[in-house]
């Protein structure tokens, strides 16, 4: 799980072009949207693309995606349960 969390953080930094941030800067349990990291609706869509590309997880609408993206830990748990690759 810890390994997956680290990989995910790296992938998020890359996909969202979070320049200057390192894996250690992202709090595993902090909210990603609004307060916390401060991501927006376009980032949610980029995360959906990321999860499809790397883990074969498909979302049919943005709302379901955003419900999953509470924190990096929440994403990691979802990936572990639903990944197809």
């Amino acid at each position, binding site marked *: 799980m810890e390994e997956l969390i680290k990989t995910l953080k790296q992938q998020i930094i890359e*996909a*969202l072009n979070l*320049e200057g941030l390192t894996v250690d800067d992202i709090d595993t349990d902090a909210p990603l949207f609004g307060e916390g990291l401060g991501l*927006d*609706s376009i980032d949610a869509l*980029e995360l959906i693309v990321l999860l*499809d590309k790397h883990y074969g997880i498909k979302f049919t609408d943005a709302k379901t995606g955003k419900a999953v993206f509470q924190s990096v830990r929440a994403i990691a748990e979802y990936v572990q349960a639903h990944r197809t690759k």
Partner: protein
Amino acid sequence: MKIAITGIGIISAIGNDQRQTVDALLHEQTGVWTMHYLHSNHTELPVGEVKMSNDELLQKLNISSLEAISRTALLGLHASREALQQAKITDVSEMAFISGTTVGGMDTTERFWSDWQKNKNLNYVSQHEAGATTQTIAQHIGSFAYLMTPSTACSSALNAMIMGANLLRAGKVKKALVGGTESLTCFHLNGFHSLMILDKDLCRPFDKDRAGLNLGEGAAYVVLESEQEALARGATILGYVAGYANACDAFHQTASSEEGEGAFLAMQQALQMAKIEPQAVDYINAHGTGTANNDASESRAIKRLFGEQLPAISSTKAFTGHTTSASGAIETAICLLCMQKGFVPVNLHYQQGDENVIKPVQKTQFRPLQTVLCNSFGFGGNDSALVLSQKGVDFADKITDVTLQEYVCVVEDLDDYKGYIPPMVARRMTPQTRKMMVAMKKVVQESGIEPAKIEAIFCATRLGNIEQTVAFLEAMLNENEQNLPPTPFMNSTHNTVASQVAIELKNHHYNITYSDGEKSLQSALLDMKTQLELGLIQNALVLEFDTCEPKFDGMLQKVGQNSQNIAKAYIYCKK
């Protein structure tokens, strides 16, 4: 001066001309069907296609099939001819042609992209840019006094009407042919798909279960001229432009704010110009795309302005699909036809009410319409509203010569953008956009004008963020139209830069982008000068922006053209 409308031309999924359009509206028949003409893998997505192939259009327009011409230009020419014919105009030498588009020649670019690398079909390369569409249409009509191409995503065509009306009021032209054209492309179908706002079923604007929009295509134009000119030459007056405004939501690149500030300001200012109270509006043709966000935000803006007493409201996008850059003109044409025939068109497919959004017209209503409001909103919160009326309004303009103070800033090398742009904002910007932002911030600072008090933002760009366009296009072709990232699509829209500037400056004023090839800056400055002379604005921010992308530039060079990097900002204020 009253601004009269003397010609209408329209082509969309519901018909190739005025008569077919009215028939479809009255018979409540949608033109959104299963994909037939567009060659996309996303056949699951219903689209509002014009029911003619390119070959059929070429034949009908009497154009040689050997000519390099985009579908966008073909649709535009079809509608232009209908409008000019109705207005009985053959000489266009004292007329402006203002045609909004964002897609431009993308329909041919995406077909020939891989051919171009092999040196085939290169005659289409110069058709790519938005302004080429306007030029090509004009070549088949005649020599206009001005050619202008507003490119502000889905509000482009309504912004063309605003520009045309201002040129008439300032006495710069006698007549104007104004509107917009857009053909369906795999590029923007996939772009909207990456934003997850396309409905796999027929769209249901304002419905509780609305699940997105259906894309459409088409073109529409109207002929504008002074009432005096129209009467003098014996033209039939079909209606009047009574008021208009463009305002910026300055909230987000693709989403509308909860309060619908930009939409509210545009509608409010348009009614003020028309000198009418909200109660005088008989019908609102809403932007109403069918996305959760637009319909909620637009409803909020309408309720803020109109209170509890709402006029009849409908979106006609369930008929035509969302025709993006052409939608403002297509819906203006629909409003004019409804005013002539005396009916309010139904909001198709509406079933369940949503307490947070307005309740649209569920059955065609037959009654006279004196005053109609038409909304058209684009990405970047570029929001426009137009008031049409049976009586018109006298614009008693005083035109004054202006002497201007100029401030200029050019950024060629990017060293210290971090002091100017917050990192969370900069991360989505291309290096060239970052230079533009720094130039803009420096020139605003130098001028000493408070950012929110800059009264208009004009952007001139030939190719926009072409590197983002190429990135999305190649991803689309390489990935077989699957799983595409939304950021490059969002950035590929020509007005991205001007909207990012407005968001940075928290500026809700007039915001326009022109894409007229090498004459883009000329178009932007003509708009600015016209508004300064009319006294509509006292100062302005002008942005000159372009990017040289190696692959695209290589193709341009093969046809004797080239592109360049520019990031230059100007402030002008009256002395």
